[in-house]
């Protein structure tokens, strides 16, 4: 029993890592621009396809492909900001619809470029670290955990210790006051969009060898990310990370001991309960909606 619990815990830690990368990006975009980016799951998918195109098809080293994925998807984010969210700044529902349009375009491009089939991405390494009998973690999953911890710490440092980070948090808290202090709303929106999208791309790129890559993989990701940001409190980065861990553990344990669909139902119920009892989430303070 202990082995099973420990093993499930390790699996959950891996799930928590990539979920929190995606959710933190979504929260950052919502916080600074006030728009729900429905295409966030497809940005994750785009990151995976960069790895398919570079690493699986063209033998580029994996970590170069991952960095390329981060930058490529970050640039996609900048395109979204410039073309969609900036003109629709006063129309939050419009931003949501535009991101749905962008989602359809990204999906169609993936289908056109790669076909509807599942992509095979050769595993980076077959090594497995064995802690004890029946408790082990594949090294590929460990990389995801390490990358998530490093990137999230870097983001935390950036937000709390640098001038750009301060500006970003200021415009998330009160865009008007921030603008009056001479902070460029456009600039902070671009930074937030690049980081938010880039993180989703990074998560997609890192997990590409571990999941089934297909043009419609974004759907599960965006549902999970929504649950996490609601449970954590919309607009709270710390909340998103904590909720990712909680959600990943609950989901992984229910999947292991019962089944996957029941795990999805549990996750959604968790979100519904949080919405009913404390709509601002576990860590949310100000009501933005």
């Amino acid at each position, binding site marked *: 029993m202990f082995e099973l619990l420990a093993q499930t815990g390790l699996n959950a830690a891996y799930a928590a890592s990539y979920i929190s990368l995606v959710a933190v990006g979504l929260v950052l975009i919502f916080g600074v621009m006030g728009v729900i980016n429905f295409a966030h799951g497809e940005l994750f998918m785009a990151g995976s396809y960069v790895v398919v195109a570079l690493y699986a098809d063209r033998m580029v080293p994996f970590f170069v492909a991952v960095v390329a994925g981060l930058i490529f998807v970050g640039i996609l984010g900048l395109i979204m900001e410039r073309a969609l969210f900036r003109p629709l700044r006063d129309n939050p529902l419009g931003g949501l619809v*535009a991101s749905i349009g962008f989602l359809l375009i990204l999906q*169609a491009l993936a289908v*056109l470029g790669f076909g509807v089939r599942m992509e095979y991405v050769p595993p980076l390494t077959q090594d497995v670290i064995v802690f004890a009998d029946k408790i082990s973690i594949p090294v590929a999953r460990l990389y995801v955990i390490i990358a998530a911890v490093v990137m999230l710490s870097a983001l935390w440092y950036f937000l709390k210790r640098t001038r750009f980070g301060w500006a970003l948090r200021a415009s998330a808290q009160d865009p008007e006051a921030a603008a009056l202090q001479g902070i460029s709303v456009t600039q902070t929106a671009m930074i937030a969009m690049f980081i938010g999208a880039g993180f989703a791309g990074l998560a997609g790129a890192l997990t590409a060898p571990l999941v089934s890559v297909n043009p419609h993989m974004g759907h599960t990701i965006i549902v999970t990310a929504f649950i996490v940001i609601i449970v954590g409190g919309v607009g709270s980065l710390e909340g998103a990370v904590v909720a990712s861990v909680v959600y990943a553990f609950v989901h992984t344990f229910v999947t292991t001991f019962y089944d996957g669909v029941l795990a999805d139902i549990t996750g959604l119920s968790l979100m519904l309960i949080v*919405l009913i009892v404390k*709509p601002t989430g576990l860590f949310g303070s100000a009501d933005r909606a």
Partner: protein
Amino acid sequence: MRNFLIWAVVAVALIILPNLVSFSQQEVLVFLTINILVVASYRLLTLTGEWSLGHVVIMGVGAYASALVTKELGLWVPLGILVGGASAAFIAFLLSYPLFRMKGFYFLIGSFAAGEIIRLMWKRFRDPFGGAKGIKGIDPMPDFSIGIYQFDFFEPVSYFYFSAVVVALCLWILWRIEKSPVGLTFHAVHWQDKLAQASGVNLRSYRTLAFVIASGFAGIAGALLAHYIGTINPNSFDVEVMVFVLTWAIVGGTGTFYGPILGCIVLTILNEIVLRELGLEQTRPLIYGLILILSILFMPNGLESIVQKFTRRKEAK
């Protein structure tokens, strides 16, 4: 008298229309008719200012309920359709307790979660919902004759006539509701909620009422769909379908009764007929997404704003 003539012409055109198009386009016409009811009922909910992401699942509740009562209990199909509508309204009534503790963005996400939970229940419980494969072999409408016309429901044309009559009736009821004092209160709940509350309007019960009525009609639409295609599964009502309903409403504009219907008709014709005829099978979602973005960027008030521009100009002359 003039109005009566216009409606008579519309009715004749609708009777002739399916005989001029190909078989697959006749099927599109049936779906279009059903979708018009979905999007028109959705508008009733948006009148109170709330945007739901669970509307298509509620429609599915109607489809599942009607399919089950006709298949398992042997109920007459037209009665089953009414049961479908009633069940959808009842589920919406139950959901309104948790959901209307929220507003705006939280309602949007909450309705999505509630809908997904219902959908996953269909997937999880094979008895009676049939699991991921859904329900197959749903009873079709029994054929009947009205003297001058023999309804044979293997033909899409017949089902088109049948659903067009049902949908027209529902649209008329929705229209009467919107123009009634209740409908005006829905507007007030959205635009003047503080004033409405001060005048003694119970905001929450009016939101609930709009949600329940809208859901009932969505349920009827779902039942119509189930008895036409004969097979339903949880994926027939997933969030991708909801996205289509949302875009019809937004591209059409929700300021008027006809806005969402216009959006539904224009986008369906564009998507199903124009793009399909051009042979752009794989690029269809891409072009559709592009249309969505362009219309929200350059036409934020929807297609109805163009119609209004023309009708106003006529009046000015």
